[in-house]
């Protein structure tokens, strides 16, 4: 499966990418803002996405909405600071599968990616 990492911080993008140690994710794409995320997604159609919520140009919620509009089967994991429960709930309502709060440990992100990949696999079986 392919994973698109969306975060405006290079450090965070690297940290997430380093934690990709599960055999099912074979290819990683990266985007630094919402617009870029949506356009890379439209071109590459990766099965998995990790999404920051506070992003330049286009915010994370809007990016989630557009990605799910393009491909409703995409499994999206929000990786963001929990600034407001309202926003978190909205992300789920827009189609995010889960929420990992920043700051995170390498182990947490790695486990979360495993579950995301498993979830995506079970979705495609249906």
């Amino acid at each position: 499966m392919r994973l698109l990492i969306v975060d405006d911080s290079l450090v965070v993008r690297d940290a997430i990418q380093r934690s990709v140690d599960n055999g099912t994710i074979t290819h990683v794409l990266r985007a630094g803002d919402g617009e870029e995320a949506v356009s890379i997604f439209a071109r590459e159609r990766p099965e998995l996405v990790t999404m920051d919520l506070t992003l330049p140009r286009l915010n994370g919620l809007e990016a989630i909405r557009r990605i799910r509009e393009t491909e409703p089967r995409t499994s999206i994991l929000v990786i963001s600071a929990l600034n407001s429960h309202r926003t978190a709930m909205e992300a789920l309502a827009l189609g995010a599968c889960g929420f990992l709060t920043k700051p995170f440990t390498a182990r947490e992100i790695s486990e979360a990616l495993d579950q995301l990949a498993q979830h995506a696999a079970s979705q495609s079986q249906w």
Partner: protein
Amino acid sequence: MAADLFLPSLTPQSTLAELPTWDVRLPVTARGDAFDEVLRRQPDLPGVVVFDTTGVRGAISRTRFHQVISRPFGGEIVRPRAIGALLGEFSSGDLMILDVNMPVQEALRESLARDKSMIYEPVLISTNGGKDVRLVGFTDLLRADSRISSLRNQQMQEILATVQEGFLLVDRDHRIAWEYSRSVETILGRSNLAGCSLTELLRDLLGSEAAQLGLKYLEALFNPNVIEKLVVDINPLKSVKVPEHPGRPRQHLGFAFRRSFEGREIRRVLVRVEDRTREVELAAELEEQERQAGQRVDLAMEMMQVDADSLTDYLTRFLVEVSQISRLRSQPAGGSTRAAVDAIFRILHSLKGEAGVIGLRSFAQRLHRAEDVVASVRDSGTGQGSLERLDPWIESLRELGVEARDLIVRLSALVSNKAPREVTSRPADIVPALEALIADLSTRLGKAARFVARWNPEDLPVAYGSVVRESLIQLTRNSMVHGVETERQRRQAGKPVPAVLQFALRRHEAEGQLEVLFQDDGRGLDLDQIRCRARDLFGSEDLDDEEAAQIIFEPGFSTALTTNGDAGRGVGLDLVRDRVESLGGMVLVHSEPGVFCAFQIVLPLEPEGRS
């Protein structure tokens, strides 16, 4: 009934082997009247197994046999004939034989799946590895199942009634399921929740904001696209404060959610409800302790910047005065609670003033809050037990003093006696201290003022150092707050900016008197306003100018309408007068509206006594 004897020992694992079985058989060739005879001899027999040379052919039940022979001519047809010929009448479809080791509840499900016409027929069971076939009566099977279910239910109810945790189930429409633990009612303070909407309950308990978030979270949990484990951390109801209702204690609730499945489908969500009040309070206490530790560091930093002698003097006085407050609190002076409260107030006010001057902000802040409490005690009536409200504050002030003193000991141990400091005479510190106070008040009040001191520090007897210093602090605050106008007001009135506060000290050896003069060039006493306030506060009518001027020394008098850290509590001048009079001196006030206000303190050069 004999059939009930076997029932008490049943468990959910019980199999058909534990039920009474019947192994009465008849060959297919047996006649109907022989069958009738068998039934008559064994009144509990549910039916017989019918066999031929090839094995079991089926079963005929008592009920079915009686149904058939009670038809018109039924007996005449059936009794003389071989029952085998009539087997088709008594059973239909394939022969169902259940293994004796099948659990009771499963066996009932199987039996109920039989053809509708067969449902009440006895059940055939195979024993001995299929060699034997016996009968179990359908009512026995039904009764056994019902018994097991009711035992199960009883145990479930016991758990639900006993478990401390609040558990409830909600369905897709957020309706609360029938069975929930009794604790839910205790924790939430609501009863009869079965069938209620959880969202409405939450709205009622927590307000619409929290209920709305809870609803969205619940919807996410019922959404198969959401991964349960990856939303646990964002549960918005993990710990929520119940809005305070009169008559209900402060409460924090916690809700945890877990999906319950039927196959792969999310059927319901299990909700665990917790009272987290104690937990939250403990966390708050811990935070408070950390905050206090932080304050301790601030206090140390602050103390290191304060002149060492002033600090020691202040602390000594502080601790003495706090003990004095304790005495006043336990034995009100002259038995009057009101007088004790006033006295405590003045002490706090004076301590606060000095703390501000020498730069002990933590002390000043703490004392200001203590004043608030005392003021509220005073204003809400000084009835029985009202002084008890002061205890925590007295205690906290004492702790602060002791803590500061310990800090000094530790700090001085650190610096040891490496750098012996220049011993400065204490009276000389008064002027820089007042200048600092004026500078501070100028910025905060938007007023400009400068200080002019005309004195020779040596003229001040050591014994009067403290009273003069204290009095000047109070008078300065008073002038800055009430006397001195803002810069704009002064310019409009054609007065010079900055205002001038003057202090002079004179020894009159011949009269044996020490005179302290303090004067500002502010707006002077507004006697009309004072009279007005005096009427409101004390009900004093028709005061002449002299009397009106003197009333500013009464405890509790203040013309400032708001209370801030600086003045406006109506404390200060009475304090000055009390201290001065206790030393055998007096305070006079002179004023000209719009021009000046002057205070004259006269003290005997030979002190009469100490306060």
